[in-house]
């Protein structure tokens, strides 16, 4: 029986979600302000007269998208303060989706590095 020794590690993986650092309402408003500012920046890229992003346009849009995505998930959805198990379940789905569909799109002849060359 090789397994008796494993018992300790496993229960540990379940984080104690006691450490609920609750953000204040004002904290949420600040997060929303940050999101609003990024959204405004995103929309400004549409008006090319303001700033000419050139080749950096698509990468910049993607970075802003990822930041907004991450901020909503981490703060509004509490994932930063909640159990690791939730993070794992959700991120597993997210990574499977990104990996599988990126591979599919590449099989159709789309190359991710091309977005830096437009």
């Amino acid at each position, binding site marked *: 029986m090789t397994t008796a020794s494993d018992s300790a590690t496993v*229960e540990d993986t*379940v984080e*104690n*979600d006691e450490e609920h650092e*609750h*953000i204040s*309402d004002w904290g*949420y*408003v600040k*997060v*929303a302000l940050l*999101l*609003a500012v990024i*959204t405004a920046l*995103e*929309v400004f*890229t*549409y008006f090319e007269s303001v700033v000419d992003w050139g080749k950096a*346009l*698509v990468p910049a*849009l*993607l970075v*802003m*998208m990822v930041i*907004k*995505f991450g901020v*909503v*998930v981490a*703060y*509004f*959805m*509490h994932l930063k303060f909640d*159990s690791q*198990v*939730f993070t794992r*379940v*959700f*991120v*597993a*789905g*997210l990574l*499977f*989706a*990104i990996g*599988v*569909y990126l591979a*599919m*799109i590449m099989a*159709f002849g*789309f190359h991710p590095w091309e977005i830096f060359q*437009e």
Partner: protein
Amino acid sequence: MEHGDEHHRSTPLSHEKLAMWAFLGSECLLFGGLISTYMLYKNKLPEGTAISPGELFDIPFTSVTTFVLLMSSLTMVLSVSSITRGDLRRNRVWLLTTALLGAVFIGGQVYEFTAFYNEGAGFTTNLWSSAFFTLTGFHGVHVSIGIVMLMSLFIGNLTGRITKASAEKVEIIGLYWHFVDIVWIVIFTIVYLFPQ
């Protein structure tokens, strides 16, 4: 055999919250596929197609509805935070505000769809239009289901079924609502803002 505690749980996690997170993980694969299909077909639109997304999109208008949906995420967390404190009155206000903002977003989407249709881009017109209406339509259906759930919570609050003890229910519906919002964050960038 010795007896364990009848109420034993192997983790301190809530069943319902874990179920919701698993469901959202699963939803990633659904929307991921819709978005990839959209990207694939946008680039495969035959040369010389009369209807092109670049001409149809009204970015300033969509930016406003995007902003509305983003702010509904703020009001959603505020409603969760108020019910956690036991403030039922504020919870009611924020739930209703969130649902209204969601309804404004859906209204904007209906307007946009109608406008596109009037300009000649229907569901069956071409590859792009089928993919566009399917992707944004799926998202819109998710938002609408969210609105129904929020209104049910609101009515529950009015009739006294939603109390401080049910804060987790509000939080779980909130998770769904925020997920719908982050899907829109991705759609807004990839569908609307990427160079057409």
